[in-house]
């Protein structure tokens, strides 16, 4: 089949391995996500806090600059687990905003135009399809979460005049683990919610609502029932607790409101399972008519 002849020729070349089809999906999903100027704007905006924290580390480790700018006042500039916790929290909530924008772009275009029958008629499974999109989202969110956090950790390790790194290595582990838990949860939740809505704007709203509405409900439950268990519905509080424990930062919760690790892990696993069930119901090549 050549353009000038307009005739058909069979393909005789080699085929790529099966696993690489997931990479193809991820590559096209990334291109789709980053083709939007709003994505670029959100990403740029999400780098601003990282720059502020970078300056903070610079000032904390540079006595001359610190003396000139802070005039010797170093309050709040000790570079420790609490410092990185604040940074991780900020970056994580920016990651939520990016998820709410990107995740619908990855799925709703396919659903709105009924592309799944064609996509899944190729040698790619439903799991492969979702996993490809998941990888694209994880890669995008990594750019605003654990990558800048670990880069700043590395900068702090480099800048610190005292031996600092080995004593604080758990912070790096916490940053990586905490970020990965959060972006994996956001990715699967974002894809699942997007798969049920054909309009992107609505999907964006639903993703925010899925995080904050249960938090409100959990608050009401806690207040009415006078129990701490309502906090299990409060994703912001629960994640802050998880990050704080992973980084080894001082707790911000009142002593009686501490949630057990098992309960928090169970809630996260439940949220993921519900998301998987939602994706399983929606990502199909054909609707099955019952009855």
């Amino acid at each position, binding site marked *: *089949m*050549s*353009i000038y002849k*307009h*005739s*058909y*020729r*069979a*393909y*005789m*070349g*080699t*085929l*790529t391995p*099966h696993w690489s*089809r997931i990479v*193809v*999906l991820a590559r*096209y999903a990334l291109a789709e996500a980053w083709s939007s100027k709003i994505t670029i704007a959100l990403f740029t905006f999400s780098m601003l806090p990282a720059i502020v924290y970078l300056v903070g580390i610079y000032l904390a480790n540079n006595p001359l600059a610190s003396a000139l700018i802070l005039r010797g006042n170093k309050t709040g500039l000790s570079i420790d687990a609490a410092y990185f916790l604040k940074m991780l929290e900020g970056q994580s909530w920016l990651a939520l905003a990016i998820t709410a924008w990107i995740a619908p772009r990855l799925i709703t*275009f*396919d659903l*709105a*135009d*009924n*592309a*799944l*029958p*064609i*996509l*899944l*008629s*190729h*040698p*790619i*499974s439903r799991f492969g399809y979702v996993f490809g999109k998941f990888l694209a989202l994880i890669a995008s969110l990594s750019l605003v979460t654990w990558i800048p956090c670990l880069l700043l950790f590395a900068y702090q390790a480099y800048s610190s005049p005292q031996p600092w790194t080995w004593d604080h290595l758990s912070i790096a582990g916490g940053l990586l683990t905490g970020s990965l838990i959060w972006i994996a949860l956001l990715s699967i939740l974002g894809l699942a919610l997007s798969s049920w809505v054909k309009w992107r704007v609505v999907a964006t709203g639903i993703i925010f609502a899925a995080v904050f509405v249960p938090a409100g409900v959990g608050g009401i439950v806690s207040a009415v029932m006078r129990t701490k268990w309502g906090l299990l519905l409060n994703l912001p509080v629960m994640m802050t607790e998880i990050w704080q424990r992973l980084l080894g930062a001082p707790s911000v919760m009142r002593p009686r409101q501490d949630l057990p690790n098992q309960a928090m892990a169970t809630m996260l696993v439940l949220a993921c399972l519900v998301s998987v069930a939602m994706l399983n119901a929606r990502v199909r*090549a*054909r609707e*099955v*008519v*019952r*009855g």
Partner: protein
Amino acid sequence: MGIIDMNGLEVRLGGRTVLNGLTGELKGQAVGLLGPNGAGKSTLINTLLGFHPPSKGSASVFGLDAHRDRARIREGVGYMPENDSFIGNMNGVRFVRYMAELAGLPAGEALERAHEALFYVGLGEARYRKINTYSLGMKQLVKLAQALAHGPKLLILDEPTNGLDPMARQRMIQTIQEIRKEGSIRLLISSHLLRDIDETCDEVLILKDGRIAALSNIEEERRSNRNFMELETVGAIEQFSVKVRGLGCECAIYPGGRIKLVMPEQIVARDLYRVAADEGVQIRRMHLRRDSLEDIFLRAMENGPATDGGQLTNVDL
């Protein structure tokens, strides 16, 4: 071994048996899939693509199990679904390239063949336009292009002329005929339009209520049929009919010089003209009628599905 084999294939969806014990072998270059709404045509296609697991029996494509080896089957299959199915905010080239890469072509090859496939189906000039700006006919063509781009061994077309105007339909039919003529691709074409199947296929599988009503080689069926001829004549038709009977034709005379003939295979219209000239009879009108696919289809519908659980039955024509 045929390109598609079915062995007691049964598919149940939502508690309902949609395909009921299909057994048969499809080995034509282009196989038409006919049947009324709800007969199971699309379900059969989806089962061959591995979307639905058989509840009983099995189906195989290229000798590979349709469910167990679905990834390998899909590598060699191009599928054009019935309904709109594309990514509207991609342009034609990007969409076809994406599908070719998913089918296993390296990125460079996929891009090259995406351009070629779009030119081949006639969308060369529109290939950089976003698909959601395409007309219905162009959307059908871009679906065909993506099904062809990776060089499949089997092309499955579900209602390829759905919603097309006569010109676009003709172009689609011509393209399908060219693909068939080229010879390296087998075709499975599902359509409600008997004419589409008639013009493009050499074998037809007719489904009714999830069972096989008929599986026929269209060309062979036609060849085995006798030719019916209707004549309007002026002149000595009695003598003419005697001579025509002498050629081996069955002949019936009606008032007004009308004659109906059943001609044996070796007799052609020229022989009738010759006899008419000899007898001084004018042939004012001549109408040759062969059994059409419509006749085959209607007979299959009247006969109904085979009573032995969908076992392949050739229609007695």
